[in-house]
């Protein structure tokens, strides 16, 4: 077959041709391979390098499939990583040098899971999020200067076809779209306050775990008996337990198309500050595609996700496809139970270019899973006149709380509401009795 020769060569060549004993060469190739994977964003460790090396001793090195699966089992921890892995494995097996990419990987754009410039995707401008540019997150327009200027590739691309992406940030465009981009300070302040309220409110749910409780309602046999052993089996004192409360999951689905980006950014940035890692919170941003902020509201993650969202939007001015995005969510994460029993907050202006029926259907689906479905809309006054808001109108019957985001009082009210949610179930019409409300129905609460 010629396979054996090739395999040995390639494993050897991946390192560097030399007169080393074969184990050394294989070990070096394995380590190189792991390092390359790491530089592409997969999480590998010395441990997994070691496991891979011992796995290689167990499989037939001449068999491509066996080596592939050995490496796959040790280095891939997540289905999203498979694509990147395949590319790099192809190089290893093909005997191509495993070139380490430059450290630009720090910003994440050389990650092949994301359409970075090296992988046929489009170059993206980068924004720094640490330190002073935090102001850019919040302050926006006035602080354009602190924006990190995109790398050379980014500029080049930005000069022509990336115009759409940069437009969302360029000062000239901003002025012409002022009416949409302008959020009053008190709106943003209310949003930050909301994040603060959510932190304090910490809606809870009962878990199946119990804790010892003096006033509990269930007898704790274990502790009672244990205590009675000291008194010759006479149970003098009864011990009780009560369910342990757990934080209820909060799920944010934030629109970041067009003008919504700044609003969502402020919300997510303040949430990050307020919520921290201890609270159960998951956030997704979308424009036309859904992107998960994996490490719950990690700042760097937010930047990546926003870049991805920017890249996926062909046109910033015309609204987004909320219905499709929610469908994507419902089919993927929703099926895995992300929204089950959670408080779901959709942050969007509701300008939807898709089919209004799709949007309504998906919102209904999401509502069935969620404990409470909240929609925060910073531009509610346009719902009635804006043709793109048909979908929003169609979805209204399936929203538990509609919060006009331009009204600081309404946003503050939401904070209070979340605090009081507790275990109470929302009053909803049952499926059978839900009246077929057409798109023309006036959105309740929008006129507030």
């Amino acid at each position: 077959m010629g396979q054996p020769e090739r395999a040995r060569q390639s494993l050897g060549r991946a390192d560097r041709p030399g007169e080393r004993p074969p184990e050394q060469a294989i070990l070096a190739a394995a380590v190189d391979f792991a390092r390359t994977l790491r530089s592409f964003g997969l999480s590998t460790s010395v441990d997994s390098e070691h496991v891979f090396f011992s796995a290689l001793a167990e499989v037939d090195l001449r068999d491509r499939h066996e080596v592939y699966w050995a490496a796959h089992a040790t280095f891939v921890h997540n289905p999203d990583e498979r694509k990147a892995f395949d590319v790099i494995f192809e190089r290893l097996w093909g005997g191509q040098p495993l070139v380490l990419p430059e450290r630009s990987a720090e910003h994440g754009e050389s990650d092949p899971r994301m359409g970075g410039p090296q992988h046929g995707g489009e170059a993206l401008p980068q924004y720094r999020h640490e330190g002073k540019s935090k102001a850019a997150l919040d302050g926006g327009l006035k602080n354009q200067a602190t924006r990190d200027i995109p790398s050379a590739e980014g500029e080049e691309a930005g000069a022509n076809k990336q115009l759409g992406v940069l437009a969302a940030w360029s000062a000239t465009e901003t002025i012409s779209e002022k009416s949409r981009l302008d959020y009053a300070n008190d709106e943003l302040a209310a949003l930050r306050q909301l994040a603060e309220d959510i932190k304090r409110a910490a809606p809870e749910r009962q878990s199946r775990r119990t804790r010892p409780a003096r006033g509990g309602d269930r007898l704790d046999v274990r502790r009672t008996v244990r205590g009675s052993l000291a008194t010759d089996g006479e149970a003098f004192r009864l011990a009780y337990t009560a369910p342990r409360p757990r934080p209820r999951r909060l799920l944010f689905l934030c629109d970041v198309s067009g003008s919504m980006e700044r609003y969502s950014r402020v919300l997510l940035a303040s949430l990050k500050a307020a919520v921290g890692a201890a609270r159960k919170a998951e956030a997704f941003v979308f424009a036309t595609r859904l992107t998960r902020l994996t490490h719950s509201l990690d700042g760097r993650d937010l930047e990546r996700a926003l870049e991805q969202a920017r890249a996926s939007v062909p046109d910033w001015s015309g609204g987004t496809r909320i219905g499709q995005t929610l469908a994507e969510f419902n089919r993927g994460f929703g099926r895995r139970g992300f929204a089950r029993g959670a408080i779901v907050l959709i942050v969007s202006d509701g300008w939807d270019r898709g089919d209004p029926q799709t949007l309504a259907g998906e919102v209904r689906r999401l509502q069935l899973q969620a404990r409470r479905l909240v929609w925060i809309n910073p531009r509610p006054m346009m719902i009635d006149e804006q043709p793109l808001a048909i979908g929003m109108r169609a979805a209204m019957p399936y929203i538990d709380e509609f919060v006009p985001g331009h009204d600081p009082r309404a946003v503050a009210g939401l904070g209070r509401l979340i605090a009081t949610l507790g275990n109470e179930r929302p009053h909803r019409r049952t499926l059978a009795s839900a009246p077929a409300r057409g798109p023309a129905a006036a959105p309740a609460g929008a006129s507030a």
Partner: protein
Amino acid sequence: MPGFSSIGELTSALGRQRYLTDEGLGTVLFLALRLRKPLLVEGEPGVGKTELAKALSAAAGAPLIRLQCYEGIDVHHALYDWDYPRQLLQLRAGGSAPLYSEEFLIRRPLLEALAQPGSVLLIDELDRADDEFEAFLLEFLSDFQVTIPEVGVMRAEVPPTVIITSNRTRDLHEALKRRCLYHWIDHPDLKREVAIARARLPEVGERLAHQVCAFVQDLRWLDLYRSPGVGETLDWAEAFHTLGRDHIDPATADRTLGTLLKERDDLDRIRGKGLEGLVDQAAERANQLRGEGASGGAA
């Protein structure tokens, strides 16, 4: 656990248990056994993650110990508990046996797995348990020993083969993943699914099996809310067989569709698309495949 000396031996042993693996899963499982590493399998519901552990234990002739995870599971459900009622009785009866000895220890699955040499330990749907439990498990999986304060350290003579499944409702800790080998099980392709159906349901005719699988394979491309898994394919084939059909027809398909699709939206959508078309399409593909199989067999 008897050693399997090669990947081929392992997969054919699993095949005899009517569990058909592909090359990837076979290799990874073999490595997990040889390297004594836990195997973490993830995949869509219904691709046979749990079944894998059952088949492995049957193939190796090793006892299967299953720990079903759920929210709120804790040490007393997973590891050990004391038999308090018996302790009390002993105390009241004035017995002299020490109360905290193995006699009064109730072994829960994890401890049981340590006690039974060479067992297969299935930790099912780990993502349902809380993070704290996962952290606890970490310790267990790295040393295969546990400390019971009253008794001492209990260690496995032969560490169990551990298979962990997860449905990805949440991400498992990196630290846990690092200790495991990982495999993602995909839905089987048409050929493999037919083979599975034939192996699992020998009474179902070859023509029907082909058609049912072809139909289901088409459904999986349709981006449904809940794509049917292999288990549902088998149910559906069995439904046809029970109704005395040896091929699929639109009318019976319509009546039995509920064994396959369990979301109203999906049912509506498939019925709206027209079952006749889908059935015809599936029958055609099934014929093709059977033709290929026949000519391949002849060659």
